[in-house]
C-alpha cells in the first residue's frame, strides 16, 4: 500500500470471499479403507486440521440454530461454523440470515453476547461501524466517511454465510455458494432425522438454553462416537447405567432381529429399536410412559420401525459435527477449536405439544446425563481427551488404529434407507464417516462428493426417493 496521490486510485473491493476447495489426496490416504484402519495424524496434525477447516467446515452444511430459538425479527444467536464466529438472526421477512461476526474495517467482533431478542443491529466497539440485522453497513461513527466520496456504504457489510436453509425446524448454513441444497446434502438421512423432528404433528422446539463446555479432544472422537459407537456404552457407561437403571446397558432380547446401523453421505445412526432404552436412562418413569404412548401414536406418521426408534438405545451424527440422541432428546454440536480441543454446545429438544412437566423432565434429564456434570458425558469426555492427548507421543502417533468391527455385515435385504449393516454394535458407520472425511479431503467439487462411495446403492436410491 502507499499513500501518495497516484496510489489508491482503485477503491477497495469489499465483496465477500468464498474460496474454492482444494485436493489433499495425501491426507485422504490417512484413512485406509482396505485395512479398516485410521492414521492418528487425522487427530493431531495441524496441517490436516487446517485442511479440515477448508475442505469440510467451509463447504458442508453446518447446523446453526433451531427455529424456536429465534422466533421474531431481530432475534439472534451467536454460534460457530468451524472456528468462524457466526451471528444467526431472524430477518424482518421471517427468513434467517447468518453472517461472519467480524467487522470488515479492522475485523473486531461486532456481537459479543450469546443470544438476544429484537436486536436492532450490531455496532462495532472499535470505530462505531454499524450493521443492520441484514448485515448491511448502516453507518459509521458519524461525519467522517460521509465526506469521503469514494466511500460506498452499500457495498460493505458483514460477510454473509452463502446459503441458509432449514429442515423441519433445524436451520443450517453453508459457506460454499456451490453446495447442493440442504435436502440433497442430507439425502435419505432425513428419514432418520424425522424420528426426532416429526414424530408429532406439532413439531419440535429447543428448551432451556444451551449448555456449553470445552473438552480437550479432537472433534472427530465425539462425532464418530455418536455416528455409531454403542459398543462403548456397555463398558464406559456401565457404572452410570447401573446407578440409574439398577442394571447394566442391555440391548434387548430382539437385538439380532432389530438392531442396525445405517449411513448415507457419512451421516449415520445406530439403533436397537427397543422403544425406550435411551429414555429410561433419564431416570423419570413419566417420560418412559410418554414415549411408549408417543411410539404407539407415531406409527401412522413414521411407520413401525421409526416409531420403535423414538426412545430406543441409539445415537446419530450428521456429518461433520452435529449429533443427537433419540430418546434422551439432546442435540449437540462439537465445534473444532484446534486439533486437540472442542467447544461443545448442548440443547434439549422436545415436542411442542408435549405436556409442560414432560418438557421439564427432559430438560432436567439431559442436564443430569449429557451435560459436563452429567453421568454419561463425564464418562465420554475423559476417554476422548486421552484418545487425543496420548498422540503427543511421537512413537504413539505412528501406531495405527483399529476400526474393523463388523466388516462383512452389510445388510442388503433390510428395508431401510442408506447403507445398512446388521447389529448396532458395529463400526460400519464409523468406517463410512471416515470414508466421507477422506472424500472431502480428496475431492474439490460437489459432483464427485455427491456421487461417491458413501452414497446409496442405485437401486435403493430409486426405492427411497418415491
Amino acid at each position, binding site marked *: 500500500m502507499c499513500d501518495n496521490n497516484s496510489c489508491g486510485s482503485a477503491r477497495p473491493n469489499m465483496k465477500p470471499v468464498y474460496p474454492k476447495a482444494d485436493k489433499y489426496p495425501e491426507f485422504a490416504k490417512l484413512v485406509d479403507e482396505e485395512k479398516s484402519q485410521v492414521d492418528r495424524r487425522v487427530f493431531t496434525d495441524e496441517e490436516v486440521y487446517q485442511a479440515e477447516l477448508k475442505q469440510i467446515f467451509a463447504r458442508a452444511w453446518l447446523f446453526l440454530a433451531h427455529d424456536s430459538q429465534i422466533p421474531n425479527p431481530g432475534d439472534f444467536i451467536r454460534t460457530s461454523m468451524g472456528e468462524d464466529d457466526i451471528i444467526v438472526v431472524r430477518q424482518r421477512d421471517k427468513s434467517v440470515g447468518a453472517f461472519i461476526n467480524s467487522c470488515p474495517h479492522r475485523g473486531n467482533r461486532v456481537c459479543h453476547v450469546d443470544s438476544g431478542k429484537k436486536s*436492532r443491529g450490531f455496532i462495532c466497539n472499535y470505530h462505531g461501524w454499524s450493521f443492520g440485522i441484514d448485515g448491511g453497513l*448502516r*453507518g459509521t461513527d*458519524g461525519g467522517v466517511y460521509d465526506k469521503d466520496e469514494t466511500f460506498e456504504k452499500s457495498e460493505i457489510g458483514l460477510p454473509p454465510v452463502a446459503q441458509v436453509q432449514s429442515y423441519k425446524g433445524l436451520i443450517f448454513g453453508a459457506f460454499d455458494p456451490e453446495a447442493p441444497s440442504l435436502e440433497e446434502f442430507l439425502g435419505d438421512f432425513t428419514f432418520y432425522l424425522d424420528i426426532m423432528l416429526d414424530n408429532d404433528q406439532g413439531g419440535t422446539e429447543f428448551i432451556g438454553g444451551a449448555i456449553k463446555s470445552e473438552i480437550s479432544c479432537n472433534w472427530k472422537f465425539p462425532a464418530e462416537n455418536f455416528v455409531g459407537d454403542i459398543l462403548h456404552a456397555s463398558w464406559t457407561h456401565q457404572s452410570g447405567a447401573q446407578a440409574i437403571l439398577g442394571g447394566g446397558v442391555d440391548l434387548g432380547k430382539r437385538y439380532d432381529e432389530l438392531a442396525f446401523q445405517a449411513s448415507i453421505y457419512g451421516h449415520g445412526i445406530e439403533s436397537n429399536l427397543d422403544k425406550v432404552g435411551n429414555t429410561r436412562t433419564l431416570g423419570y418413569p413419566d417420560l418412559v410412559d410418554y414415549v411408549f404412548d408417543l411410539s404407539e401414536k407415531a406409527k401412522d406418521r413414521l411407520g413401525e420401525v421409526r416409531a420403535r426408534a423414538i426412545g430406543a438405545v441409539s445415537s446419530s451424527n450428521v456429518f461433520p459435527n452435529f449429533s443427537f440422541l433419540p430418546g434422551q432428546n439432546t442435540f449437540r454440536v462439537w465445534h473444532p477449536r484446534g486439533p486437540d480441543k472442542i467447544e461443545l454446545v448442548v440443547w434439549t429438544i422436545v415436542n411442542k405439544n408435549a405436556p409442560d412437566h414432560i418438557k421439564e423432565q427432559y430438560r432436567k434429564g439431559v442436564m443430569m446425563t449429557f451435560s459436563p456434570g452429567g453421568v454419561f458425558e463425564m464418562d465420554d469426555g475423559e476417554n476422548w481427551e486421552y484418545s487425543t492427548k496420548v498422540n503427543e507421543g511421537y512413537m504413539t502417533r505412528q501406531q495405527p488404529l483399529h476400526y474393523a468391527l463388523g466388516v462383512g455385515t452389510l445388510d442388503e435385504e433390510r428395508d431401510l434407507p442408506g447403507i445398512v449393516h446388521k447389529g448396532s454394535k458395529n463400526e460400519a458407520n464409523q468406517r463410512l464417516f471416515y470414508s466421507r472425511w477422506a472424500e472431502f479431503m480428496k475431492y474439490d467439487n460437489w459432483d464427485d462428493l455427491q456421487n461417491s462411495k458413501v452414497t446409496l446403492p442405485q437401486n435403493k436410491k430409486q426405492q427411497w426417493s418415491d
Partner: protein
Amino acid sequence: MSMIEICDSSQIIEGEITKITVDGIPPIAVSRYEGGIFVFPDTCPHADESLSEGWVEDGRIICGVHFAEFEFETGEVHNRPIGCPNLTFFKCEDRNGKVFAILNEEKTDV
C-alpha cells in the same frame, strides 16, 4: 420564514417515517404518532445519517445507525451515542389535508 406546504397529510402513516425533499432546504422527515403529525430534520442530530431509514418503536423514533431513541413530543434522546443531542421538531399543522411547517422554527411550545 413563513409556513410552507410539504406534503399531503394522507402520505403520513402512523408509526412510519417518510422522507420529504423540498427544494433548497435539507431533507426533512415526517411521521404520525397517536394521530398527531410530526415534522423533523431527516438528518440525525448526531451524524450525517437519515432518520427515515430508522423506525418507530414504543413512542420513539429510532435512528437505524446507532440506535439513538428520540421521544415524540419532547425530542428527548435516550440510548444515545456520545455527543448526540436531542431531536428538534418543526412547527406544523394540517390544513384540509395539506401539511404545512415552519422549517426554521423549532416547535418549542409543547
